[in-house]
């Protein structure tokens, strides 16, 4: 059975998710990758994240660029992306969406802060049909790697790490 998630995602939503669950994600979601996520982490750590103008609580971060070619997951285990997962979970991000196996420490951090990690197939053409709106939120100088927000309708994903467990084990 497919579990339908809509942002903002609640802690109750997270408690009901298990590794291997197939989900859909709808609503506004954030997008960022190597260049911008460390900057958002820094803002969260120095208490200036409100300047983004969006609440991180219950949000999704999709590890992708946003370009005229569309969207699709980049590897979440790249250094600058994976190192953002713990701090951004602490700041309120409930679901990190990308691809690839994460390290044990990251899976523990997700559990500590009540967040999960899901993988999404790199199906740009299908995701284009499910992306309703997009806008740049911050750091426009990063171009396709800026912090973006998408309005999405039923992005497909599989829960890959939750409650200290990983589908890659």
């Amino acid at each position: 059975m497919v579990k339908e998630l809509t942002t903002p995602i609640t802690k109750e939503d997270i408690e009901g998710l298990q590794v291997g669950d197939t989900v859909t994600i709808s609503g506004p979601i954030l997008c960022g990758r190597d260049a911008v996520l460390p900057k958002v982490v820094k803002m969260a750590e120095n208490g200036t994240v409100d300047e983004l103008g969006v609440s991180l609580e219950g949000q999704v971060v999709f590890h992708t660029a946003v370009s005229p070619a569309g969207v699709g997951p980049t590897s979440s285990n790249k250094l600058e992306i994976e190192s953002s997962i713990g701090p951004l979970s602490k700041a309120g991000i409930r679901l990190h969406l990308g691809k690839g196996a994460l390290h044990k420490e990251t899976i523990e951090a997700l559990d500590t802060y009540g967040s999960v990690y899901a993988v999404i197939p790199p199906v740009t053409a299908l995701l284009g049909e499910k992306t309703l709106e997009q806008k740049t939120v911050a750091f426009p100088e990063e171009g396709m790697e800026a912090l973006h927000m998408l309005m999405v309708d039923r992005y497909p994903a599989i829960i890959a790490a939750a409650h200290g467990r990983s589908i890659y084990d």
Partner: protein
Amino acid sequence: MTNFDYDKTVALVADTLVRAGSTFKEDKKEAYRRAIAAERNEKAKWVLETVLENAEAAEKNRSPLCDDTGIPHLVLEVGPDAAVSGRMLAAIRQGVAEGLRKLPGRPMGIMGDDSHRIDQSGGLDPDSAGVLPAPILVRETEENVIRLHILMFGGGPAIRGRTYRVFHRHNTQMVLDEIVNWSRQMVSELGCSPCTLAVGIGRSHFEAASMMLQAQVDGDFNVQSEMEAEITRRVNEADVGPLGLHGDTSVLATFMKVGPQRASGVRIVCVRPACCFEPRIASVEL
């Protein structure tokens, strides 16, 4: 071929690049259908079905299969009586640029001097055509044609691929074992599987990489040599599965090309774990 028309060549090349970035060849579609039918893991089957559904949507819309639209790699085949001029190469280059704008390619070309391009401080070129193609590989063909193959190389396989020496100890199995060992690691690290393993074996890094490129041009998912089938089978036994979610289908096929070799205990082997959309390839006679 004899009546070179600059504008027509530009248009043909642009259209071919769009096909390469948006279309699965029929043998690849068949390979996916076979894999879906054989896959026993439900999550893996779901991924395979979704990738094939994506390919159908991309072909219908002539839109990118993947947002990493890739770096154009070109192979030019030249027949015995054919002549390639500088103007034809310029038309090919312009056709690639126009194809990238039309696809549209992801604008990910980095601007600036050598140092700026290394550390990405020169900024991104907002023009999709700022992604310049890799150097053209030219090879002979017995057919009396000029044929261009365009392949779009994504970043993930480039991160995980490897070109390195293997001591063969006068036993082919030693080389196959090493290819399998490398590939198991590569496939487990690559997020976008199932892979097609592209393998080149040569006398230098350049030659091995060029064999790897040609293996993708010549490869057919319906035709597998014994060595290719063995590599595929053994990597699939690792149970990595599509997107790393476990399953029978880590690898759809292996495309291997073995070049001339030298008297030596060493072979230079290039392996690229081509992602679930690769080879993204289309061909045209100019």
